[in-house]
């Protein structure tokens, strides 16, 4: 029997005993031993490690690839075409659009700020006629595959709290993030790779100062095995993946077998199922040492595919590379891949670095969607492209100094796009007012987006909970509406 199966057997046995214990004993014992079920610690499914009863219903998507665009891409320059904004270029913001709104201290009071027209032309795209700026030619070309949420809005006005909010449903760091909830609820189908993987990138020579905090993929109060594993852009993709210098794989195999034998003796003596888990854990580590290099070795990708993702695809640490890796991970059954690309914080760089940002992300994002599609994987893979907020339709900086044009953080409206499993493609859902300032109709709040994502994965967001500090916590707090209108 291989160690893996052995562990499963033990878990099952433990499951069985866990259940039978409920039926016996006095009230005090029942009260004591039952507590673990009462206290919300449901025993995981032995095969996947997921929770019993989850998925709650048939999922539309099996995995998620999140393309998080840190910094707040400017919706008014990319997706949210407003002729009136162009007309009003250089005029002060009408008071009724910003009355009572709070902006970052960099803007302070918005009174008298001047409107700034989109910096490049927009066109309607494909059969769906979705508006996409010329800034994003590749995304524009696949508009019919995408579902645009043009009425996104959030609660937070600064980066770290807003990204935390997007990914964990709370502005304060320390709550479990989307990927860890998914890992906790659904468990993992892969044995030789982590099930929640994070890759970060940033455009070269950017002035951006946003940092990737590890709480962006933290598991909060969920057991830490559910936290995201960051694949690094340099060195071993996974920390400590390589054997020490001079130790061959064959030598390692030999000792792992020996360790397993010695641990097996220990298991027989102590009877502690944790020992079986340990045996499996070391075996999985060994598998991972083979599967990760195989994963990151792009030599089996045809030239045409590499070219599709664009320049930089062969440089580890680039967004294009990460997008291709995301597809490879999806192929291997990884449930949640979180890409984060920083540098969208155009306070003073709308006519400069903004172009670099678009160039470095546009082609690969579109390629990922189309590559998944041509492999038939887009049907059960969900791709989400989103910033943590949008940017002010009015200017930050001097209207007479085009070189330093910028826009400040804007939580009141922005655009997110999604593609794949269970969505209506080619749909633009929701609208902002005529200046792209506030949501006018069909707004989607962060918690709604989260509820919808979970729904597509077959999870009722109100029922994926974890008991902590005496309370059942969930990703969507006490909010969240599944946006039925965008579901296929």
């Amino acid at each position, binding site marked *: 029997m291989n160690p893996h199966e052995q562990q499963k057997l033990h878990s099952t046995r433990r499951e069985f*005993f*866990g259940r039978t214990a*409920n039926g*016996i*004993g*006095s*009230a*005090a*014992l029942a*009260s*004591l*031993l*039952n*507590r673990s079920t009462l*206290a919300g610690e449901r025993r995981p499914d032995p095969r996947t490690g997921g929770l019993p009863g989850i998925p709650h219903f048939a999922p539309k998507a099996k995995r998620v690839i999140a393309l998080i665009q840190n910094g707040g891409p400017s919706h008014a320059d990319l997706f949210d075409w407003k002729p009136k904004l162009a007309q009003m270029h250089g005029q002060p913001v009408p008071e009724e659009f910003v009355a009572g709104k709070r902006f970052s*201290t960099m803007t302070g009071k918005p009174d008298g700020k001047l409107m700034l027209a989109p910096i490049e032309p927009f066109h309607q795209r494909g059969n769906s006629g979705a508006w996409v700026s010329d800034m994003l030619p590749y995304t524009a070309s696949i508009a019919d595959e995408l579902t645009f949420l043009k009425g996104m809005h959030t609660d937070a*006005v600064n*980066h*770290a709290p807003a990204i935390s909010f997007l990914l964990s449903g709370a502005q*304060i*760091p*320390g709550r479990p993030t989307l990927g860890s909830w998914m890992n906790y609820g659904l468990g993992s189908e892969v044995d030789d790779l*982590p099930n929640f993987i994070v890759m*970060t990138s940033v455009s070269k020579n950017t002035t*951006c*100062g946003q*940092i*990737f905090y*590890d709480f962006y993929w933290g598991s909060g109060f969920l*057991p*830490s095995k559910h936290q995201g594993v960051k694949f*690094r*852009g340099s060195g*071993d993709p996974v*920390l*400590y*993946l390589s054997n*020490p210098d*001079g130790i*061959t794989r064959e*030598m390692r195999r*030999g*000792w792992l077998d*020996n360790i397993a*034998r*010695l641990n097996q*003796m220990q*298991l027989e*003596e*102590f009877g502690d199922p*944790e020992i079986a888990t340990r045996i499996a854990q*070391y075996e999985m580590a060994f598998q*991972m040492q083979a599967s990760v290099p195989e994963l990151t070795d792009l030599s089996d990708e045809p030239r045409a595919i590499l070219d599709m993702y664009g320049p930089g695809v062969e440089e580890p640490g680039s967004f294009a590379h990460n997008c291709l890796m995301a597809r490879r991970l999806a192929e291997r059954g990884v449930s949640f891949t979180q890409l984060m690309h*920083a540098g969208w914080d155009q306070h003073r760089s709308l006519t400069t670095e903004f172009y670099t940002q678009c160039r470095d992300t546009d082609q690969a994002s579109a390629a990922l969607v189309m590559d998944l599609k041509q492999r038939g994987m887009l049907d059960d893979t969900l791709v989400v492209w989103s910033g943590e907020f949008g940017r002010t339709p009015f200017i930050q900086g001097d209207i007479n100094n085009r070189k330093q044009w910028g826009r400040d*953080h804007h939580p009141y409206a922005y655009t997110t796009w999604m593609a794949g499993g269970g969505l209506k493609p080619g749909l633009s859902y929701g609208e902002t007012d005529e200046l792209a300032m506030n949501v006018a109709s069909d707004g989607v709040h962060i918690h709604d987006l989260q509820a919808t994502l979970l729904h597509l994965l077959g999870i009722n967001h*109100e*029922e994926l909970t974890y008991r902590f*500090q*005496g*309370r059942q916590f969930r990703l969507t707090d006490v909010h969240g509406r599944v946006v039925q209108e965008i579901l296929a």
Partner: protein
Amino acid sequence: MNSNFSITLLLFCFALSKPSVAEEPVDFARDIQPILAENCYFCHGPDAKQRASDLRLDIEEDAKQSIIAGDANSSELYSRIRSDDPDEQMPPPDSHRSLTPDQISLIQKWIDQGGKWGQHWAYKPIVKPVIEARNAIDFFVQQQLHQQGLEFSPIADRRTLLRRVSLDLTGLPPTVEQINTFLADTSPDAYQQMVERMLQSPAYGERMAWDWLDSARYADTNGYQGDNERTMWPWRDWVIGAFNDNLPFDQFSKWQIAGDLLTNPTEEQILATGFNRNHPINGEGGRIPEENRIDYVMDMTETTGTVWLSLTFNCCRCHDHKYDQLTQDDYYSLFAFFNQTPVTGAGGNAQTAPVLSVPDQPQRLQLAKLKNELSKFESEQKRLIGALNQKQNDWELAQTKQLQETDTWSVWHPESYSAQKADLAYSNDGSLLTSGANPANDNYELTGKSDLATIQAIRLETLKHASMTAGGLARSNSSNFVLTDFAAYLIEPGKPPTRLPFKKAQADYEQTGHGAQLAIDANAQSGWAVLAPDKNVQREREAIFSFEKPVTLSPNAKIKFVLKHESIYEKHNIGRLRISLTEQKNPTLAGDTKQLLAALQQPNDSRSPAQLKLIQQKHFESDTDYQTQATKIDSINSQIKTLAKGYPKVMVMADSPKLRKTYRLNRGSYEDPLNEVSMRVPEMLAALPENITPNRLALANWLFSVDNPLTPRVSINRIWAKFFNTGLVKTLEDFGVQGEPPSHPKLLDWLAAEYRDCGWDTKHMIRLILNSRTYRQSSHTSSHLLELDPDNRLLARASRFRIPSWMIRDYALASSGRLVRKIGGRPVNSYQPKGVWEEASFGKKTYRQDSGDALYRRSIYTFWRRIAAPTMIFDNADRMTCSVISYRTNTPLHALNTLNNTTYVEAARLLASSVLKEKLTDQETLDKIYQRIVTRLPREKEIPILLAGLAHDRQQFAANNDNVISFLGVGDSPVEPNLDPVELASWTNLCIAVLNLDESLTRQ
């Protein structure tokens, strides 16, 4: 297997035949309230906003309306929970909550038995059960075991016990000497003595401190953007020391919460308050300071609530608690204690005031050295003073005579004088006074003759006058002046005025950056000014300007002086002045001389204290030996000052002098205040005593008052959990109604009372626990026990659990013999794969690995960067917010870490080296390695596996020398030169394997 199985079956049947639930009295707090809390309180609980109807099931009077005592079937509560009519059914179908049949029948029984209410166990006063057993722990645990027909497991063998105690109390494996000592000790109290030795080890404080740092969210950086480095580690060292000194837990706590508010607090008591300044600081651009400040105060409030009360206050930021009787008002009333901080929330300074400077060890040594020198110089000076005092009279006489002979200044009386803007008035004493216009800048011209044959120097006196600001020297805001230019001209009839250049300028006082020399330089704006650090400008000052060449005036010649005030400081024009001339070369400043002469001429007994001081000072200064000594002392003092500037600054607590009002914040938002609240403790608990000023100290005292049952229960429960992996109350962080009731309520209360009554003596409590039979059991598990009690809540065996990652590292280093046993100090950077900080911070933070001993310090001294925690640590609290629970998970990533991390590979090599040096047989070598890692010898059946592995590696390494060299090159420490490389490499790889055995990673 077979026999095990039949025993299981037998016991199973036995268990089934035990009296059923019905016959045992149902306890409201233990059995019923958790069900109600879980399923009903969301709508029928404390939160007024969520309450769907008037019915409250958390309050006895209300709840009783829905039950008829003794008759479940007629009770509304019971019929509602049994109903399947969607309109009737409770909880309603859309609540996603439901009761199990067991729970429904428990409620039925509870009502049938009379529906007796009871207070939530955690809030009940602690009553110490009276028992006569020798060990209360064993008494209560055994009592419960017997109820289940169980017995204690046998006592674990001595090696296991030694290793267990060593890990639990020091976080380190026992050394070979410790093993031998303990095994050789045949005295009846050998075990107790061993526990005692471990408790006295300095490693004890380091081990205990780790969990405390997790709860204090301790880190070496701010977190967030910028992630600035802070210097809070003296506080960390204080925690370690406090554990080692066994500082009573009440003192330990009170100092940390409110040490600054104690009467005449010591530096140590203030240092302790660093506890609540360990929270992250958000320096992100665009953040509103008040928003940050509120975040920080919330963090302090919730951390205090969790650490000492295990109440989940954070729920009440936004609304009343859903389950516990805690209101939003309660939250902000507790918040009010911490809201008195002077911190504004602005910026990301990692040493935001209030701070306390605490020297590190090298600085302490340096300071001691300097102070030692200082005292030597000072005693030498004392001796000199004694000698000088002997000669006082002689000196005075000589000095008086000399001064009388050398006062060579003669006052100059100008013939004409004018100012550009102000009026100038002449007095007979030769002085000129300004009045009238008080312009921003003004220039004066004075012209007149002199009787002196040759003039060597000019003296300019600035004099006080009542018409000046504060009776001082000028009519500026500060009464200071800036003389930007002073020039002299020779005027002879028929000739243009000739400038008379000065050689140097000196003054009896010069403001920093405003020396007298600047009045004769080329810069038109710089000049002489006299504002003293104490801002006092009421002292008269003088400057002397010496000519380059002596000036001879012909009888018709005149001399002209031009004084310019052209600084950027407005109205800084000299208010009253007088000029004197001298024929003496290199004259000295006269101010002191004049005063000195006046003092000397005064009869001894009528001199003022200032005059006495002046005479003495001048006398001493005239002595070269004294001067030398004084210079040395000044130099030491300035070195001490410079040293102090480099002391680490620990952020500490303080209250603003003015009371800050506190408001309940709507949904926790800083910009949406509701009603005002005052400092008080939650209403459901005993109030603060009357007649005291409510402040943090009052709060700290209240936590440890007899009226508060939570703190003793909460704190002893956490101590317990260190030794059994689970608390008697499993939810270490929540003692509210949603928390788990204690597995052994009486034991918990007995221990809590004992902890309180013994004076919060932590080591005493640990002795009690470790000396119990319960603790000393074997951790072997039978299938029966596993079936009956998988989580070991009944304690029919000892707990067996993976040691935390920080301990795994310390453990490996200790086994290798390379662990550096230095306590405290600045944090260190050990081995870490390249680029982790750089990637997390876009290259803004560069990881600089330390070298030498710093690589082998205990993990607690590792630099903790909040945005990228040390990679060698896994499964730990994230140190962002307070955490009192630890998770132990097993992922392949952990295995990769302990198999491949340089730390472990190098430790394995060092361990192998030190054993191989003894030149033993393979079997003996193996024995030594096993002893050092798992405290025991390898078993018969283990040896062939290990030796086969070794043989295989010998073969592999012998065939590939490059591999040997690379493998032995891992880590900074040099390779032992006198060992066969193939042997060393093979044994090293074996040691890696042994370090990774389940047994090595586990405390059992």
